C-alpha cells in the first residue's frame, strides 16, 4: 500500500512532546558526537542519523516496555528513542567503562540491552533475522510483545530480507520491519541498486501487509507503527513499513557526501523531521516557543553533562579484559 497521509484527530500533547524531545535528543547526540569525533575523541566508524530522526522517534513512541527493537549500523537514534541514557551512550563513544558496552562495542554495536534492544549491527541486513528471532521467542512464551526491527534500503537487497520476513509471515509473528529508506547505500543510489525503488512491494509479494510512508513525518510514523502494533497484537503480523527519508550529510563522519544533489538535499532539509516535530508540538500541542526552547536547552545540557562525565570516567583495563575473555 502506498502512502496515505490523512490524519484524524489531534494527537495528545504528551505524545507530541515525546516525539519532539526524542528527535531533538537524537539530533543533539549526533551533532555533539560528530564534534567529539572531529576532536579526535571517538575512533572507528560513526554513522550519524541526522535527518532520519523522525523514524526512530515515531516508531519507539508506539511501543511498550515489554516490546523489542533491533537496529542497524546507523543505530544511535534507535537506541536513544528506545530510552537509553545519553550518559551511557556518550561514554560508549568515548570507549569508557561506563559506556553501555563498557567500551567493547562502540558506535556500531551500541545497545542498552536492558531496554530489550537487540543492538546496533555492523553487518547490513543481519539484524532482521535477529528481530524475527525475538518475535518468535515472544510467541513461544505466549507474550504479545512486538518486535520492531529497523532496517535499511541497502539491506533489502540482502537475502536475509526475503528469508526473514517470509519466516515472520508464515508464523504470523508480532514483527514490524521498518525500512529506513534514505535512498543511499554509502554513495550507491537506490536506483542503481534495484529496478523498482518501491521497496514495500517486496513485502506484498510474499503476502505481508506493507506500507510506504514519509519517514520524515514523526507523527505519521507513530500512527503507522501504532496501527501495525495493534495488528500484530491481534495476531495479524507481520507488517512491513517503508519509511522514506534522506541523510543530512554523508554516509559517515568522514564522508562529505558530495554525490548528494543539492536540490534533493534541500527538499529533505525543508522537510526536516526535527523541525516538523517542533512545529507539531507548537501548533498541535500548543506549546509555546519559549517552552520548546527550554526543552532544547535541557537536552543540550544533558548531552554536555554526559560528555563531562564520560571524559572523567575510566576504561576497562587490559587485565580485566583478559580476565573476562579467559573463558572464550
Amino acid at each position, binding site marked *: 500500500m502506498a502512502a496515505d497521509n490523512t490524519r484524524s484527530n489531534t494527537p495528545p500533547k504528551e505524545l507530541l512532546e515525546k516525539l519532539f524531545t526524542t528527535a531533538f535528543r537524537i539530533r543533539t547526540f549526533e551533532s555533539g558526537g560528530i564534534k567529539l569525533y572531529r576532536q579526535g575523541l571517538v575512533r572507528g566508524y560513526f554513522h550519524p542519523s541526522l535527518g532520519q530522526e523522525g523514524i526512530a522517534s515515531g516508531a519507539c513512541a508506539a511501543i511498550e516496555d515489554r516490546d523489542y527493537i533491533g537496529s542497524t549500523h546507523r543505530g544511535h537514534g534507535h537506541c536513544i528513542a528506545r530510552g537509553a541514557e545519553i550518559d551511557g551512550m556518550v561514554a560508549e563513544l568515548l570507549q569508557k567503562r561506563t559506556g553501555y558496552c563498557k567500551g567493547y562495542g562502540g558506535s556500531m554495536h551500541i545497545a542498552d540491552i*536492558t531496554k530489550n534492544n537487540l543492538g546496533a549491527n555492523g553487518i547490513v541486513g543481519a539484524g532482521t533475522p535477529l528481530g524475527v528471532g525475538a518475535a518468535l521467542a515472544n510467541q513461544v512464551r505466549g507474550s504479545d510483545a512486538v518486535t520492531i526491527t529497523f532496517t535499511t534500503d541497502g539491506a533489502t537487497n540482502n537475502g536475509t530480507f526475503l528469508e526473514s520476513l517470509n519466516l515472520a509471515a508464515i508464523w504470523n509473528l508480532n514483527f514490524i520491519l521498518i525500512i529506513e529508506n534514505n535512498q543511499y547505500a554509502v554513495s550507491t543510489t537506490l536506483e542503481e541498486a534495484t529496478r523498482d525503488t518501491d521497496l514495500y512491494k517486496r513485502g506484498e509479494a510474499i503476502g505481508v501487509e506493507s506500507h510506504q510512508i514519509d519517514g520524515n513525518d514523526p507523527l505519521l510514523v507513530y500512527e503507522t507503527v501504532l496501527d501495525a502494533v495493534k495488528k500484530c497484537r491481534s495476531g495479524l503480523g507481520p507488517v512491513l513499513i517503508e519509511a522514506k527519508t534522506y541523510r543530512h550529510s554523508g554516509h559517515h563522519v568522514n564522508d562529505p557526501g558530495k554525490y548528494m544533489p543539492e536540490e534533493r538535499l534541500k527538499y529533505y532539509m525543508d522537510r526536516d523531521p526535527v523541525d516538523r516535530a517542533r512545529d507539531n508540538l507548537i501548533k498541535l500541542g500548543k506549546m509555546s516557543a519559549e517552552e520548546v526552547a527550554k526543552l532544547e536547552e535541557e537536552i543540550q545540557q544533558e548531552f554536555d553533562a554526559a560528555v563531562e562525565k564520560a571524559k572523567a570516567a575510566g576504561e576497562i583495563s587490559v587485565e580485566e579484559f583478559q580476565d573476562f575473555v579467559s573463558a572464550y
Partner: protein
Amino acid sequence: MADRELMYREALREALFEEMELNDEVFIIGEGIAERGGSYKVTEGLLAKFGALRVRDTPISEASMIGVGVGAAIAHARPVVEILYIDFAMLGMDQIVNQAAKFRLMTGGEGRVPFVLRTQGGTGGGVAAQHSQSLEALFYHIPGLRVVMPSTPHDAKGLLKYALRQPDPVMFLEHKHLYMTKGMVPEGELIIEFGKADIKREGTDVTLIAWSNMVPRTLEAAEQLAGEGISAEVLDPRTLVPLDKDAILASVAKTNRVVIVQEAVRRGGVASDIASIIQQEAFYDLDAPVEIVAGMNTPIPFNLELEKASVPQTSDIVAAAKSVLHADKAA
C-alpha cells in the same frame, strides 16, 4: 536411575524431550523436523508432545533460521536450530561468526546467546562433496562459540542437556554415521559439563585422541593394537571448545606418544591445533612427534572407494600408533 541401551539419535531425542519438559522456553525449528521427525529422526514425537508452537518446520532459509535462533536466544529463550547438514551451516556463517559469537563481548559481557545449533557432518553413504564435510575447525577458530562433538549415546544425551542450560552459543555437531549406534544411557538426569574429556579406553604406551565418529574407529584400532601387545589410551575430548587440555597433557605425560585422529581434512584442522599445544606445553614429555591421522586434503568424492580413501580407516590409525612407537628407534 537405570541404564538402558539407546541409539545415539534416541539419546538426543531424550535430551530434547526432557529439557523441553523442564523448560517451556526450549523450542526447536528446522527443515522437516515436526511431522516428519527430521531426516535422521532425532525429533520424532516432539511435535505430538510439545505442539506446533515449540516444534516447527521451516522453509529452506538457513541463514535466517540460524539468525532467528540467535535472536531468540538474545531475547532469553532457548532455541534449538537443526541444520540438516553441517555443509549448509555455511549459509549462516555470518550469523554464527559475526552475531552469535560476538554479541556477548560487543555488549560488554551483559548480553548472552544461549543458542544451540544442532547439525551433523562427516562422510557416509555417498552423499558426496557438499554433504560430507567435517567442518568443526571453522567454528573452533571463532572465539565465543562452544563446539561439542559427542561420540556415544551417553555423551550425546548428557552434553545436549548441558548445552540447553548453559549461556553461550553451542555448535552441537553430530555425525551421520553415529545415529544408529547404540550404547548405555541412564534414564532421566544426565548432565555432562563442557570441557571434560573422557578416557574411552585406558592405556600406557600411546595416547590416541579422537572425537565423534573417529572414536569407535580408534577404539577398534586400540583393540587391534592390544592384540599386538600395545596398550593404547583413547581420549575423547567430547567438547573441542572448551578443550580439556589438562586431561590431554596428563595422558601425554603418561604415554609420551600421541596420535590425533580426525575425520576432517589434515590442513588447518583441530588436530593441528591440539598437536601445536602438546608440542608447546609438553615438549619434553614427547618421545616422538605428535602424529596426525586425518582426512586427505580433498573434497569428498562420490565413489565409494575414493570416499573411503579420503578419511581415516582403522588400519591408518594402527599404523600411525606403531609409527610413533618406533619413531625414536627409526630416527
